[in-house]
């Protein structure tokens, strides 16, 4: 006689949801999502809409953004087993030195940034240089939601649902010449609306500049973002157009872009110019190469509670090693930090 002992964690056959019911439940959820998408059609844009994320502050979306939002490919890239950072934290704990040196300064001061009208200059080694109005610049691309980890060089991290499109699509569109080997990005310089640029004690040589190798820029994970948490970018998060490169430290993901140049030589970048022994051109997230002033082996995932500090191990390439490690074959990451 066979005696079967069941463990308490095993579920009984009677508890398993019949497949048909399970599938219809999914259909129901899909239907409600579609309803949500319908609700965001122009006319009643975001105002009073139930958000995909809790406690998202509604903004004033520009018309071009409201038009594109319904066609978004939601959850195009997600992260496994990680909670999205609360909207309030992602928008009130920022490094955006154009608006002040403290984490709360960007949220307090960035209202002065005028994001409409906005134009982006494409120049350098390209077949189709020009100055594009932002609405024309983004027109050809479908928005995708990309949930990415963001690891700051200061050893804190977040998980943020961006809305954007692959940088590669833009680069292909502008037809880089055979001389183009790097991409250089530049942030707006406007001391009138950016109080940090008026500070006589700022160490940064404005405008903020960043750069990528062309093959890094062409990688499908690198995106230009125009929104987050299902809405347009708040000013303090780099409105109206920013870079997001999830396998690199956050400072590479330049905000409020006004110029994208394809160049032959490795461009100088802001933090590298400021402290070359602390910040490299590559700035790949790497737990084995410390910042001279602190360890990069671990990070504080925010929000980190007062009595339960949320400290975790930092992952190589911020957890995107499978996708991007091959870009750096044969490169000494200790020298090229």
């Amino acid at each position, binding site marked *: 006689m066979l005696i079967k002992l069941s463990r308490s964690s095993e579920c009984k056959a009677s508890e398993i949801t019949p497949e048909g019911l399970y599938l219809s439940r999914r259909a129901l959820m899909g239907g409600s999502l579609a309803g949500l998408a319908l609700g965001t059609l122009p006319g009643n844009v975001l105002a009073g809409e139930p958000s995909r994320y809790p406690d998202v502050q509604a903004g004033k979306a520009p018309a071009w953004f409201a038009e594109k939002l319904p066609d978004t490919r939601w959850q195009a890239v997600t992260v496994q087993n990680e909670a999205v950072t609360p909207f309030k934290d992602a928008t009130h704990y920022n490094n955006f030195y154009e608006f*002040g*040196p403290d984490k709360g300064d960007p949220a307090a001061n960035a209202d002065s940034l005028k994001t409409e009208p906005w134009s982006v200059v494409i120049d350098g080694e390209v077949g189709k240089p020009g100055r594009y109005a932002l609405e024309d610049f983004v027109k050809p691309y479908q928005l995708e939601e990309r949930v990415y980890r963001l690891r700051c060089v200061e050893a804190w991290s977040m998980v943020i649902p961006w809305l954007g499109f692959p940088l590669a699509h833009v680069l292909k569109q502008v037809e880089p010449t055979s001389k183009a080997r790097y991409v250089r990005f530049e942030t707006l310089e406007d001391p009138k609306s950016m109080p940090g640029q008026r500070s006589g004690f700022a160490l940064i040589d404005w405008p903020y500049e960043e750069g990528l190798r062309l093959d890094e820029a062409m990688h499908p994970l690198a995106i230009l973002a125009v929104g987050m948490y299902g809405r347009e970018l708040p000013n303090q998060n780099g409105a109206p157009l920013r870079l997001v490169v999830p396998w690199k430290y956050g400072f590479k993901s330049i905000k409020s872009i006004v110029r994208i140049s394809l160049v032959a030589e490795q461009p100088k970048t802001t933090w590298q110019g400021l402290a070359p022994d602390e910040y490299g051109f590559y700035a790949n997230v790497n737990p084995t190469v410390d910042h001279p*002033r*602190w*360890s990069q*082996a671990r990070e*504080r995932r925010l929000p*980190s509670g*007062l009595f339960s500090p949320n400290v975790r191990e930092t992952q190589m390439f911020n957890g995107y090693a499978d996708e991007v490690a091959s870009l750096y074959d044969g490169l000494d990451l200790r020298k090229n930090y």
Partner: protein
Amino acid sequence: MRYPWFRLGIFMAGCLFPAWWLYEASVNLLGPDPGKVLMDRLGLGALVFLLISLCMTPLQRLTGWPGWIVVRRQLGLWVFAYIVLHVLAYLFFILGLDWGQLTVELRKRPYIIVGALGLLGLLVLAVTSNRYSQRRLGARWKKLHRLVYAVLGLGLLHFLWIVRSDLREWAVYAFIGLLLIVLRIPAVARSLPRVHRRQGRSA
């Protein structure tokens, strides 16, 4: 005890700030990284108490009121108390009580080494702040407690090495610290006006 209310007032202020910050942290007013904010505020609070304690001698000379000197020891002990809390916050929130990492940091990071030296200096000053030590050390006590200027220098250097992009805040504290040191140069100290004899306007 002379000037009990003045002493009590400073004692209350010293207690109130950390209590208020802890309350703010508990109701999520310090943002997503409250441990870091708490650590930063405790360090800055210690620097402020240090600068205030260094104001006492010039103020006493300026006004002739002996109350300033009476609270100087308490102010110095607040510097020490805030720094001890600052270090505890660092160990708990930043290092996550990883003692192995602490030994690495103490060997590798200049700003941690400088901060640790400052802590040692403050420890010596706090331990010898009582009347018994003053009597035992006699004339040497005064010499020993000039260590406070070295602690100020170490503290400002520790602060400078944390600055990433904007020197304004650091420059303000460094300027005040420098001013307080300059006021102690004998030639400068002698030329300071003494308002208490003339009953005139202050400074």
